[in-house]
Each structure stands twice: as structure tokens, then as C-alpha cells.
């Protein structure tokens, strides 16, 4: 352990949080860290809305009859849940919050290449989100988050135009964020920070940004086509004119399948950082993990047809898409093997971020492998549009995406706020969330195998027991999130001061103070070490009296 500076003893240092505290200094801030926090607060509100909608329809599903919601209202609730969670929580979650906060610091830069575009992205996002909320308040949308035609364009009697416009506008904010990421990673790296010295989180963000840039414009124009058909009566997907509703599905999934990689690649980046830190080892197979992110980004663009195995797609096309879907599992499996190899003979400690990372590993394996059932042409005919699909993508999106987000939030919380949360309660909460998640979604695999279709609120009595398990799991999950909200808010005021490097981690973000100063570093850092130098002592080792939980195990 080299020089130690105990920041908790000295008077409060100027940092990005206390430099200016007026409302306009936040709302007009060009500082990527403050914009990251603006995103964090907004996304948590959206997460609350989407989660509340899910709790309501899970309650309805407790009984085989309709007691709480009418069919149309039920449809509106699951549509709100889907649109909010996908467009306004999962897609921006890790990139817009953690990516925004961390990327320039990890690159040793003062800010992103285009700070004004970064701030604009938050306003654009909020405008899109507001339209989405207005669509819900004005009476809701019942098309499902997929807006399938011709239902969405010709028959749906709800606020499709508002919801579509909201998703369209939110897409611009994704593009702005992604563009900033790629330019900044290319042009703003600190001296000595070569590509293979970048943390894997940065590689994951780069791959994510590529998918966003290439995919989002396609869904944007697709939503424009729905818009002109609904608003002006143009007949783009109208079968009566010879238009093809399946063309909509192709265009939609060309973005929306890669969108699951937008949601999962960042989580993989977080998990790489966390596993390396809590195994106290350089990641095994660094380059394999880095390039597999790019491979997932590229191959992910050629698998969209697996959503149309039963929508009149030709058998030859289906065979091709089936093969390519199996193929995209390969780089993911490579990552998985390398993470496990990192754990092997590492000094593993079970701190709360690591528990979420372990949760990711286990749940994502289940989510990924059940994806193979669905990419198999024969089994997909049975599983298509059943609860099996619902369970599969929740294991990937929540078990993968949200667990990754929570791992990252807990890992970098001390850096973002300068405070530590109560570790014991955090560990307990991680276990509650893991149990609640599995109780909610594992029964849904069974429901799907036995033929319960998705998006129905009345069902035969033999499914009731499994639905009761699922709903009680959702309650446990909601309880877990509530405790988390309480202890994180509590920590803002009463948490122990974190110090620069509470986890004894490696990386440029741990070499600046917590919370970081406005320009991230007092002088531009120069990188002389390879990435993840866990064999060498930290430049900013934690104070000796500050015994972190990370040191046992």
C-alpha cells in the first residue's frame, strides 16, 4: 500500500455534486456525471411506473376469472409495462446512467466529445417519456409494445400515435448517446490508454453504441410508417391495398431483436468489471471478451427472422435464421466461460455487487439456453406466444439486464455519491431479489410448456397454482426493490464516507476522489499499466482503518 489520503478527515472537497447547487446548474449542466444522475432519477421513476403496472396485472392473474381488470384494461396494463420497461428503462438503463457517468472517467477525459448533445439527449428522452406517459393517462394503448400491424394501424382504438411518437423521440436520445460514446472512445482516450488497456465496460459500451446507431434509425422509420398510416390513412401495411403486415414485422424486429443486445451487452460489461474486482484478478481471456462483444453486435443483426417462424416466412429463411440464432449464442458462451475461468483460483469475495453478478451468471444461462429452445424450428411452433417466451425474455432482460444494472449501481454507488450503503442489508436484498425473481418467472416456463398463451387474463383452472406462485414472486420482488430504494436513499445522507477506492478496485475511475471533481481529474492521467493490474497495489488504496467488506473471503 502506497500513499494513503483519508478524504473523510479533511474538510469537504469541491466535487461535481457540491460545486454549484442551484436548480439550473443541474438542469443545464454539461457535466456528464450530473447528466448521468439526471438519467438515473428519471429512469428509476419509469422503472417504478413499469413495475407498478406489472404488479396490477399480476394481481389480476391470481384467479382464472377476470375480477380486477376488463380485457381491454388488462391489455393496456401489459402494454404500458412493456413500452415503459423497454423503451424508457432497459434500453437507456446502463448506457445512459453508468455509461454517462463512467465512460469519460474511464477514458481519462474531462467530458464527452459533445457535452451539449449529451444534455440534449436527456431532454429529448424526457420529451419522449412524457408522450408515453400522456398516452397512458389519456386512456392507454393496448397493442402490446410491438405495435403489430394491421391491429395498430387499423383496428386499435387507443392512443397509438402518442405512444409511437414517444418511442420515436426516445430513439433520438439513444442515437445521441451512442454517437457521443463512439466518438469519445475513438478520440478522447488519455495518453497511454491503448485499445487493449480499455476496461471491458468500455468495449461493451462501444459494441452497444454500434447496435444503437445501426438499429434505432430503422425502428424510427418503421414507427414513421405506422404514424402516416394511422394519421393520414396512407396504406403502407394495409392488406386491403396489397400492403404486407409481415413487412412491418421484419422492419420492427430488425431493430427490436438487436435491441435485446442493446440491453444485455452493457450488463455484460458491468459484470466483467465486477467479477474482475471481486476475484482480484485480471480477467481471463480479456481479448476474447472484448471481441465477443463486437461479434454479438454484428451477428445480432442477422437473427431477426426468428420472430417470424410462424408468420408465413419461407422455410428456407427460417432455417437460415434458426442457424444464425444458434450461432449468436457462441460469443455469449465464450464470455461465460471466461468469467468462470476468472473466478477459478481468484480471491473471490461475496460483496453485494458480486452477488448481483453471480445472479446475472446463473439467470442469464437459463435465459440464454431457453432461447435455443425457441430458435429450434420444431419446438418454437409449440412455445410460440406462450408463457415460455415471457419467461425466457424476462430471464434475459431482468435476470441479465436488470441484475447487471443493479450490480453496476451497487459497485459504482460509492463513486457516484461518495457514500457507502449498509452492506449487510444490501446482501440480504440481493438474496430477496434473486428468490423473488425466480419465484415469479420459473413457474412461467411450466405454464408455457403446458400451453398457457401470453397476453390472456382468463385461463383454465389448472394453471392457477403456477400463477399464484408467479404473483407471490412478484410481490417478493417488489418488496426487495423497496428495501433497496430505502437503503440507497438513506446512504445519501447517513452512509459512511466511501473514500476513493472502497473495493480496492483497479481502473481510472478509482484513482480520482469520490465523488469525482467536476473535471474528473486534477490533471490528465497518463496510463502506464496494462488493464486490471490487480497484482500491483492500487494507486489510491483504501485507508487502513476503513476496512471494506471486499477484503474478506
Amino acid at each position, binding site marked *: 500500500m502506497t500513499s494513503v489520503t483519508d478524504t473523510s478527515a479533511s474538510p469537504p472537497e469541491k466535487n461535481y455534486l457540491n460545486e454549484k447547487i442551484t436548480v439550473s446548474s443541474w438542469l443545464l449542466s454539461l457535466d456528464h456525471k450530473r447528466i448521468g444522475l439526471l438519467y438515473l432519477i428519471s429512469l428509476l421513476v419509469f422503472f417504478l411506473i413499469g413495475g407498478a403496472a406489472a404488479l396490477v396485472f399480476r394481481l389480476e392473474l391470481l384467479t382464472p376469472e377476470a375480477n380486477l381488470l376488463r380485457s381491454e384494461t388488462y391489455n393496456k396494463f401489459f402494454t404500458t409495462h412493456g413500452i415503459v420497461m423497454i423503451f424508457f428503462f432497459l434500453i437507456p438503463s446502463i448506457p445512459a446512467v453508468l455509461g454517462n457517468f463512467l465512460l469519460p472517467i474511464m477514458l481519462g477525459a474531462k467530458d464527452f466529445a459533445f457535452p451539449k448533445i449529451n444534455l440534449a439527449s436527456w431532454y429529448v428522452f424526457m420529451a419522449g417519456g412524457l408522450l408515453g406517459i400522456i398516452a397512458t393517462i389519456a386512456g392507454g394503448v393496448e397493442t402490446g409494445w410491438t405495435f403489430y400491424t394491421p391491429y395498430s394501424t387499423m383496428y386499435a382504438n387507443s392512443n397509438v400515435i402518442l405512444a409511437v411518437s414517444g418511442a420515436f423521440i426516445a430513439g433520438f436520445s439513444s442515437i445521441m448517446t451512442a454517437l457521443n460514446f463512439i466518438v469519445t472512445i475513438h478520440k478522447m482516450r488519455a495518453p497511454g490508454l491503448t485499445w487493449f488497456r480499455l476496461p471491458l465496460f468500455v468495449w461493451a459500451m462501444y459494441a452497444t453504441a454500434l447496435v444503437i*446507431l445501426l438499429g434505432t434509425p430503422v425502428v424510427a422509420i418503421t414507427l414513421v410508417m405506422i404514424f402516416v398510416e394511422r394519421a393520414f390513412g*396512407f396504406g403502407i401495411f394495409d392488406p386491403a391495398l396489397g400492403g404486407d403486415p409481415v413487412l412491418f414485422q421484419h422492419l420492427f424486429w430488425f431493430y427490436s431483436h438487436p435491441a435485446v443486445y442493446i440491453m444485455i451487452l452493457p450488463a455484460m460489461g458491468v459484470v466483467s468489471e465486477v467479477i474482475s474486482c471481486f476475484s482480484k484478478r485480471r480477467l481471463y481471456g480479456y481479448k476474447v471478451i472484448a471481441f465477443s462483444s463486437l461479434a454479438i453486435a454484428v451477428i445480432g443483426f442477422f437473427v431477426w427472422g426468428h420472430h417470424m417462424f410462424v408468420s408465413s416466412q419461407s422455410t428456407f429463411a427460417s432455417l437460415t435464421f434458426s442457424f444464425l440464432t444458434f450461432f449468436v449464442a457462441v460469443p455469449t458462451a465464450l464470455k461465460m466461460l471466461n468469467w468462470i475461468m476468472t473466478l477459478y483460483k481468484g480471491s473471490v469475495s461475496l460483496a453485494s455487487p458480486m452477488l448481483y453478478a453471480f445472479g446475472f451468471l446463473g439467470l442469464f444461462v437459463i435465459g440464454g439456453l431457453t432461447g435455443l429452445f425457441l430458435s429450434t424450428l420444431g419446438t418454437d411452433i409449440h412455445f410460440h406466444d406462450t408463457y415460455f417466451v415471457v419467461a425466457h425474455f424476462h430471464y434475459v432482460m431482468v435476470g441479465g439486464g436488470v441484475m447487471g444494472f443493479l450490480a453496476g449501481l451497487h459497485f459504482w454507488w460509492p463513486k457516484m455519491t461518495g457514500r457507502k450503503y449498509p452492506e449487510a442489508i444490501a446482501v440480504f436484498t440481493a438474496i430477496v431479489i434473486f428468490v423473488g425473481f425466480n419465484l415469479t418467472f420459473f413457474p412461467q416456463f411450466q405454464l408455457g410448456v403446458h400451453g398457457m398463451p401470453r397476453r390472456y387474463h382468463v385461463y383454465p383452472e389448472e394453471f392457477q397454482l403456477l400463477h399464484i406462485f408467479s404473483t407471490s414472486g412478484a410481490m417478493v420482488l417488489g418488496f426487495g426493490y423497496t428495501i433497496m430504494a430505502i437503503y440507497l436513499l438513506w446512504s445519501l445522507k447517513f452512509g459512511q464516507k466511501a473514500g476513493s477506492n472502497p473495493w480496492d478496485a483497479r481502473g481510472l475511475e478509482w484513482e480520482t476522489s469520490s465523488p469525482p471533481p467536476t473535471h474528473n481529474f486534477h490533471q490528465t492521467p497518463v496510463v502506464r499499466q496494462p488493464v486490471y493490474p490487480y497484482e500491483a497495489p492500487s494507486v489510491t488504496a483504501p485507508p487502513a482503518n476503513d476496512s471494506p467488506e471486499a477484503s474478506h473471503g
Partner: protein
Amino acid sequence: MADSHPPYLAHHFEDLEQQKQSATLGIWLFLITEVMFFGGLFLGYIVYRGMYPEAWHLGSGKLDIVLGTVNTVVLIVSSLTMALAVRSAQINRPKACANYLLATIVLGTAFLGIKAVEYSAKFFPGEDAAYVLIPGANFFLDSPFSNGVQLFFSFYFTMTGMHAIHMIIGIGILAWLYVKARQGTYHEHYYNPVEVTGLYWHFVDIVWIFLFPLLYLIGRH
């Protein structure tokens, strides 16, 4: 290092070269997203043209070839004046830069004006017109291919409409650049905004270069 941070160098960049490279990479990435955006429309066009070739032929013949051709020339000349504006800034002639920007604005506006004339001829075909070409409930064409022609016009209006929106945004940016250029903001050391806007303008022109033959010329060979 004394004057290494002139007023036109943003504080978070180390030097002008880094700032210039970032802007250039940024605009090219943005143009890639634009290619994907218009790509969706071109894909739909290709699919339906393959399904209904006769209707596409018929629909194309209903467009005004003269106005379309004039507009193509107007737009290509506007690309020339845009390129000259960038060049003028690079060789330190801010006044010429401003004038060329103004010329580009005028030509772009002329394009939109001619487009408006074309559109209004479709919207108000006259009392005794034998057809109404606006897609929707009022669409009318006495032809066995009328449904396909309606699809063609859905694409015609969506594609040219999206292109026109890009033109309007471009003219807005050019107007802002013009005001700045009159103040002498752009010179040999700092011309990123002009160059980057130029790339966007050329891109919008190129979209038209594809739209013109695909929409106007398929009925005429």
C-alpha cells in the same frame, strides 16, 4: 502552449486537431444513421415494386417530370455552392463563405417551393380531374392497378416528405451558420460547423439523387 485554448476550442478538448476529428467522425456516424433511416423506406419501396411492377410504372407516370428535373438541377447546384462555402472558409474568406451559404439557402428554399407546387397539384387536382392521388379514403383512380398505385403514392409522399423535412432542418442550420459567418466566425483555423453542415447537406442531396430516378423515371424508359 500560450494560445492553445482559443475561444473556438471547447474546454474539454486538448487541441484543435482533436476537436476537428471528433466533429468529423461524429457527422459521419450520424450520416450512417441517416442511411439506415432512409434505408427502411427504400426497402419497403423495393419489396412493393417487386410485387406490383405495373402499378409502380403507372404511378411514376403521374408525376411531373419537368418540375422533378428542374428540382434535381437546383439541388445539385446548391451542393456546389455549399462546397464553395466550405472552401471559402478554409482559405480564409469569411465574406465569400457567408455569400455562398446564402446562395445555398436560396436554392434549398427554391427546391421546397417547387416541391410545394408539385404537392398542391396532387392535393387540388381541379374539379374535373379524373383521379385523386392522395392516399387515403379519397384516393381515386380508374384502373385495375389502383390499389398498387395508392401504395406507390404512399411511398412517394412519405419518402419525399421525409426528404423535405431534412431540407427544412438543413436550411434552418444554414441560416444560423449564415448569421455566424457574417460575424466572421469561420476562418482557416475554425470551420468545423460549416464543413459538418456541408456533409449533411450533400447527404440530403444524395438521397434526392436516388429518389428522383426511383420515383420519376421508372415509367419513362
